[in-house]
């Protein structure tokens, strides 16, 4: 589904990603963790080419992403949920969700709305359909953002620290939605600091530090028996 080959990314002299290769299978839930500045956000942003790799290739469903075809490939394969939600503030919740389906995927307006309500039900916000994002709490905005991502029916959803900007009391409502969606056959790549969530949802955990994959494995093995020293020290710091 997703394949990265020898992906490197530099900003100026700073090499943020160093020769990353990885594959994500269809329906797999991959959770990426790592310390601040390890490059995990950049990694996930390379999957939909919000960041163009300095070198290396990214394949989606066997098709190589290029600066030229990225808009088209991304349009038909992946959605993203951002740390800062990035809802469109000049549109209602409903319009936020129906925009891409109607404008990009030629879904008739009525059907797009029905669909939108279906996903609003899933995230529990049907009654907010006609409100503007600014009137919602952070957790609600992020749930709308997830509904927006789901409404395009993409097989891949990328989450870039979806709960890091939330008030602590709203983190769980967003995680709950994600946990429920993880039962579906969607490929999820999640950058997060929520270890409980990672453990519950992930098929595989990737630990990144200083731009390289330090360790990866299924959650049980990863949390119980980390092999690498850096993983151990990172886990030691956050799992107390």
């Amino acid at each position: 589904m997703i394949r990265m080959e020898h992906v490197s990314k530099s900003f100026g002299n700073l090499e943020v990603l160093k020769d990353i290769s990885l594959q994500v299978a269809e329906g797999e839930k991959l959770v990426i963790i790592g310390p601040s500045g390890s490059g995990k956000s950049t990694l996930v942003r390379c999957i939909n080419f919000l960041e163009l790799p300095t070198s290396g290739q990214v394949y989606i469903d066997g098709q190589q992403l290029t600066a030229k075809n990225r808009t088209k490939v991304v349009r038909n394969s992946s959605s993203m949920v951002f740390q800062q939600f990035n809802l469109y503030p000049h549109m209602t919740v409903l319009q936020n969700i129906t925009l891409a389906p109607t404008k990009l995927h030629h879904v008739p307006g009525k059907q797009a709305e029905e669909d939108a309500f279906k996903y609003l039900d899933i995230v529990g916000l049907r009654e907010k359909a006609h409100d503007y994002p600014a009137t919602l709490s952070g957790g609600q905005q992020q749930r709308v953002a997830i509904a927006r991502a789901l409404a395009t029916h993409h097989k891949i959803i990328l989450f870039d620290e979806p709960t890091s900007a939330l008030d602590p009391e709203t983190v769980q409502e967003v995680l709950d939605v994600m946990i429920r969606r993880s039962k579906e056959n969607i490929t999820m790549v999640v950058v997060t600091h929520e270890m409980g969530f990672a453990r519950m949802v992930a098929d595989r955990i990737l630990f990144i530090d200083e731009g390289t994959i330090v360790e990866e494995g299924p959650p049980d093995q990863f949390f119980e028996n980390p092999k690498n020293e850096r993983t151990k020290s990172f886990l030691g710091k956050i799992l107390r």
Partner: protein
Amino acid sequence: MWTSLFAPAKWQRLFRNLPVFGEGFLITLQVAALALLLALLVGIILGVVSSGPSKILRGIARVYVEFFQNTPLVIQIFFYFNALPYIGIMLPVKTLGVLGVGFYTGAYISEVVRTGILSIPIGQMEAAQSQGFPYLQAMRTIILPQTITIVLPPLTNQAVNLIKNTSILAIIAGGDLMYRADSWANSSLAYGPAYICAGFLYFVLCFPLSTFARHMEEKIKKSQNQRPEPPTVNKPIKEQIRTDEDVSLSGLLRISGMKPTRKEA
């Protein structure tokens, strides 16, 4: 002295000849309206381009803006009027006014549009691109609509300047309000009433616009004060347009997730 400048007889003459001013007023209105359309077209295109990803297009837009902003409008108009005929381009004076004032104001509007776009958080464009919107469509449906309230007041001020600047037509016999007023004053010697009348007519056009702009500005300020700070971090869109060479350290830290203040587990 005052009585001779504003002698009642002169006012009488003015009122008898009001249609002259009316004609000029209509031409000024026409030229201003068309020039404004042109200026908006030029301004929006250049504004979008100069906040866009292409370095070459950005450069072209920059040159345009600097050129038109840093040379007098009079020279530009004289150039079209006196120099272009030598290469076989002879335009009707009104058209000349539309083009001259339109291109000139377009440079200013482009700056208004550019700053408007840059004030929209970068996440908006990223969200659009992550959904698969092509750049221009994202601009049109997501970014530009958000800039409208921000750019409306400065845009209106540019429209006011544009209306006043159409009076430049007077120096190339453009038949506009200023020209009619001036030539009528020369023949009737009623300079005082003529200029006051012309000035009044410009004022009638411009004052409502300026008032509207000020009103809008206050409304925006108010709504910004009311709204609690949105939880989103406002990273201006300009940081998105970053090439590998000119990236700043703070930008670097932010994009790579190394912001020291960021909450980490």
